[in-house]
């Protein structure tokens, strides 16, 4: 009896009393630079929208994805606004988990959104999430090292040229590595790059009947190219390098080239963070042989609202604030134009001040317009998505395949073994998931 009373007392004493006002928006977001900046600008939003308070949950990308997916799939309603990728948006929208954003306000300029990005976050012509920043992939290279080696980067290079150049620049004695590429296993890490690479070599994940295609010659060609190149001209430990690790390597002057997301450009050219800020040049994602496919990498982080929220109006007010043109101007006035979230709006790329402040602007826009997620590779595919496949099973399969490829890069298995493993596990998982679906 006494025990029970004490017990109950203890529990209730610890209970958190929920005095939060009705209009507190809980926002789940990634701990990337642009989002952290958004969080810092909270006061501006609050000043313009009295009565709405913001609560931030900032997490590392993988943790965030698990948290928001679990939350939305179980309809737990812990978040009012979620930061989600272009991978999630179409899948979630089809499940009816996202609220269509039709109340962003009269001033919100939807027509200004980059068409490729707008398509990626719309289903049946309706916007289900608003893009916060977008990216494609491109080459970032060190002009000084290219000059020293007597090389000149064409604007539209071929993979053969890249491979030669990387090997020439590499000087392991001074810790200069010709090329840095992602190698860390994960569907959003090494598989993003390798899938884009395979696209440019003419490979595809699945044929029209959802049959895995890793046994095809294009994949062998692409993967051998990648593994051999990294062996000769890549940094040590490449198989655990993802975007961040490579960024750190490039910023500290250890990479001759880095092919990755276009958003990286503003980091590598920022003199506060990068030792090589004034020496960076940009070029399009390479193509292979006669093909003109630049890999079709396209990604955006977007703000979406879970269906069933009771704060739809406030949530859309916030999204409108964070993704409209006025936000770009706000960031520009505080931190300069180079730090404006890139890759979502046409107007940004016609803005003279932005072009002046961001030497990478033109190349970013070119890369983004070149990306076509509906037709990622030459051969027909049953899926959409450039550097990913927009089906729910892809996260698991992509990561498992990524592990195989990462093992090939680490030299723990041969390219053939890795492809065989990838083929086998993909077929297994697809069979388990019941593909081909009608």
């Amino acid at each position, binding site marked *: 009896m006494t*025990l029970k009373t004490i*017990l109950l007392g203890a529990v209730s004493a610890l209970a958190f009393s929920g005095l939060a006002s009705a209009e507190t928006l809980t926002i789940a977001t990634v701990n990337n630079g642009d989002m952290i900046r958004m969080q810092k600008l909270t006061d501006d939003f609050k000043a313009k929208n009295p009565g709405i308070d913001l609560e931030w949950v900032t997490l590392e990308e*993988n943790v965030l994805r*698990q948290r928001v*997916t*679990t939350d939305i*799939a*179980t309809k737990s309603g812990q978040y009012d606004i979620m930061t989600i990728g272009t991978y999630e948006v179409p*899948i979630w929208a089809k*499940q009816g988990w996202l609220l269509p954003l039709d109340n962003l306000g009269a001033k919100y300029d939807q027509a200004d959104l980059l068409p490729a990005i707008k398509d990626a976050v719309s289903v049946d012509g309706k916007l289900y999430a608003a893009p916060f920043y977008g990216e494609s992939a491109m080459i970032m290279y060190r002009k000084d090292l290219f000059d020293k080696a007597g090389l000149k980067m064409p604007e539209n290079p071929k993979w053969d040229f890249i491979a030669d150049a990387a090997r020439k620049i590499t000087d392991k004695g001074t*810790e200069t590595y010709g090329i840095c590429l992602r190698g*860390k*296993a*994960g*569907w959003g890490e090494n598989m993003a790059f390798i899938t884009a690479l395979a696209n440019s070599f003419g490979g595809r994940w699945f044929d029209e009947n959802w049959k895995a295609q890793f046994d095809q010659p294009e994949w062998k060609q692409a993967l051998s190219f990648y593994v051999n190149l990294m062996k000769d001209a890549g*940094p*040590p*430990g*490449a*198989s*655990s390098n993802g975007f961040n*690790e490579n960024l*750190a*390597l490039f910023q*500290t002057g*250890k990479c001759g080239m880095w092919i990755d997301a276009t958003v990286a450009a503003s980091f590598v050219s920022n003199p506060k963070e990068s030792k090589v800020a004034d020496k960076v040049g940009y070029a399009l994602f390479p193509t292979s042989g006669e093909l003109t496919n630049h890999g079709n990498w396209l990604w955006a982080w977007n703000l979406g609202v879970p269906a069933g929220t009771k704060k739809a109006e406030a949530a859309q007010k916030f999204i409108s604030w964070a993704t409209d043109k006025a936000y770009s101007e706000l960031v520009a006035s505080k931190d300069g134009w180079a730090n404006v979230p890139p890759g979502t709006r046409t107007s940004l790329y016609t803005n003279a001040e932005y072009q002046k402040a961001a030497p990478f602007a033109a190349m970013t826009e070119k890369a983004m317009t070149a990306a076509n997620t509906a037709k990622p590779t030459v051969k027909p595919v049953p899926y959409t998505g450039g550097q990913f496949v927009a089906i*729910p*099973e892809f*996260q*698991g*399969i992509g*990561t*498992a395949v*990524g*592990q*195989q490829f*990462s*093992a090939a*890069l*680490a*030299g*723990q*298995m041969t390219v053939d073994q*890795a492809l065989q*493993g990838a083929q*086998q*596990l993909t077929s*297994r*998982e697809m069979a*388990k*998931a*019941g593909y081909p679906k009608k």
Partner: protein
Amino acid sequence: MATTHTHSAARLMMAPSVILLFAWMAVPLGMTIYFSFLRYNLLMPGMEEYTGFLNYQYFLTDPAFFAALTNTLLLVGGVLAITIVGGIAFALLLDQPIFGQGIVRILVIAPFFVMPTVSALVWKNMFMNPVNGLFAWISRSLGFAPVDFLASIPLLSIIIIVAWQWLPFATLIMLTALQSLDEEQKDAAEMDGAGAVSRFIYIVLPHMARAITVVILIETIFLLSVFAEILVTTNGGPGTASTNLTYLVYAQALLQFDIGGASAGGIVAVILANIVAIFLVRLIGKNLEA
């Protein structure tokens, strides 16, 4: 009379623990077993259907399963070996009269207080990174090529990180046991002319048997479910080189969101863990219940 009274009182006192733990075990376990027979993907609601043993079949025939099983055992065994040997060595050292004993003890037990996520992040980025890490710098200064820890020896690297976290625990238990060893016993042996080695083998080691058992038991419980360290450092790779059972279940549950598959994996892991537990009971029974 007194005995009956005591026994019923005892039962009453045990009740909250037993009932709570039983509920904590039975409810999720029941749900997990139920889910494990369903085709249930969190991302495709409304499509749940009974699939029999399909999830088990897939989990057990997963090419990664055998690797995960081996890695789990290697991880547990490796960490146990390092922490027990290291723990005894440290305990012997700290049992000696040394200057600043208290401070050294503080230094040695410190890793025990560090969150697993933090220690994995620190080891990965600041020590084992082959370019910016401290180890790479040391080996370059000595004229060697830096070791790419997480790619070439992933499992060993994780064993090192986890062992670093658990070494303090082992040291403390061993030290307590060692300090309870009768000085006179040691002295007597010394007078008999026993050398340091034979003194250690015939007197100290048998005395520490219980401590060693305790370390094995407690650490095994925690080591079977090592997860954060793997997630932060290698993501189970390259390939499946550092995937353990817990990580494999994680991949099903939070990457694939395949709740059916993850539940089946969880059940398999529980069964395997209980086999280990039975083995441990035997061990304990012999050593702990004198």
